[in-house]
């Protein structure tokens, strides 16, 4: 499971970085989204990967790390997802404004001369 998650984070980060460095605003926004997905998965994996474990302590049984998973990274991921979602929406607006004002979807607001 670790190798799959690690590979997924790596592929997402690699693709995200590649797209982030591209000249079109749409590629940039997709790149940023992929990067934030990678970051979210990374936060999640920092709570150690466990399957079939709950993050909730039952009232009558004492807490035992063998049967429990860390709830904090999950809470962090939730916050991070909401924030990155809002930021993507905000960036989308700026992207459209830039397209409307400059007439091109190049990140510099004009086509490169090359």
């Amino acid at each position, binding site marked *: 499971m670790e190798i799959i998650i690690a590979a997924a984070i790596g592929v997402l980060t690699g693709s995200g970085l590649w797209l*982030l460095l591209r000249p079109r*605003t749409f590629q*940039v926004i997709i790149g*940023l989204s992929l*990067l*934030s997905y*990678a*970051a*979210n998965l*990374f*936060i999640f994996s*920092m*709570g150690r990967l466990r399957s079939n474990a709950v993050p909730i302590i039952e009232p009558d049984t004492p807490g035992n790390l063998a049967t429990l998973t860390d709830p*904090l*990274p999950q809470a*962090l991921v939730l*916050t*991070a997802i909401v*924030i*990155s979602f*809002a*930021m993507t929406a*905000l*960036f989308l607006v*700026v*992207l459209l*404004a*830039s397209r409307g*004002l*400059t007439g091109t979807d190049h*990140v*510099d*607001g004009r086509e490169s001369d090359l």
Partner: protein
Amino acid sequence: MTAFADHLIIAPIVLPLLAGALLLLVDDRRRPFKATVAVAVTAALLVISILLLRRADGQTALSQTVSYALGDWPAPFGIVLVLDRLSAMMVLLTSILGLAALVFSLARWHRAGPNFHTLFLFLLMGLNGAFLTGDLFNLFVFFEVLLAASYALVLHGMGVVRVKAGLHYIVVNLAASTLFLIGVSLIYGVSGTLNMADLATRIPGMNDHDRMFLEAGAAILGVAFLVKAGMWPLSFWLPTAYAAASAPAAAIFSVMTKVGVYIILRLSLLLFGASAGESAHFGSQVLLYGGMATIAFGLVGVLATQTMSRLAGYSVLVSSGTLLAAIGVGNAAATSGALFYLVNSTLAIAGFFLLIELVERGRDAGADVLAVTMEAFGYTDEDDVNEEVEVGERIPTILAFLGGSFIACGLLLAGLPPLSGFLAKFALMSAIMDPAGIGTGGPQHVVTWVLIALLILSGLSAMLAMTRIGIQTFWSPLETAVPGVRGVEVAAVAFLLLLCVLMTVRAAPVLDFMEETAMSLHAPKAYVDSVLSPGAPVDAKRTGAKP
């Protein structure tokens, strides 16, 4: 009264949040009402931050570092706000800039786009939160709040230039936020805590395997802050974005780079201070050399620019670079000099951003470039001599004020006597030359001399650039229109510059305060204790506090 005083710590966050949210419900056409509320809230913030500063300085209560547990969850589990001298000082600086920028915007800028007051208050909330929080992930949330507000403020007034610069600004900062998340989660993964004070206690006893990951996480986190602070080579977005932003937004942005500097100062001394075992002074070399590279880049930029707003943008870089290098030097005296320099340069640059807008108001867009081109081709306009006399006769006071403020800004940025810029640079340089600092901080002797040379050269370049632009603006007859300036705008600029004058006149108590702040930053045990075991000091405070 004591209970009220305890809850005052959260007021700099809650007050602008509530006011900003309520103002969203009010229609934008009722602008006078919104402006009144926003100014009242900002003025209240100023009063609150002065009270908090007095408290943190130990003038009203026994405890100097006060931690406030949100939701009353004890420290390592819940989020805490921590008030110490440094955070109180930064909150006060934010309120001062906020009030000046907001009053300035009342003349015309707050009409340039929707929801200006709300965004402005949210920005203040994010800044105050980032300064007060004692939790790494909470810091991320406040960073996003202030960045989201700043994304909208950088676009305030719209136009092609702002959208283009804003686009770059947003992309760079979103990428930096991703790094922030990765760094924070890596640190949590190895240390199991997000509380800064708790983290500081766990670092010395860490094994080598964990330490490697922790340092990697701290480095990634540091890159995210250095992007905000504008360290070369992560700073190319900064001058463009700051030059494009509207004047009040740019003025408040001048404290935003200082958020990055503040966090780096706080975390490097708290987590990687002298007591951090093997990790002690982690990253201080990077800060020192990176800071020096930033000063060099900034001073070349200052010399090369042809517009005033870009000059101010590069001055921000010089200021950041100086601070980062001073943090990298790593002795308490250098830190106290750096803190004085931080307050002084932030006030000066904010005042300069406001001033630029007033000066440029009456000018053509291309006037600066035109003046330089004419200089290069040896042109002198002889026809305009008569007009200059006419300008001088018609309105001497406004031009005299603008020119005088311009000279004051120049002196402050260049670090020349008699204003506080000189005191700040002097304090910094004498601390850097202090041999005790060189021994403990690690850098070699040659580096010290290079750093001092860079500090002096940056002052020289600022003076040259300011003189050149000042002559073109105030003495060359190219400009015919006298800028129409409103009283509130004059008041805002004068307020910021007078504070710098006040810092010069009352330098002794201010420097004493900075010294105490630096001492407590370099001995973070008091900070850690007050966060993790607030029991004893709280009791003493409850009985001993006087309103």
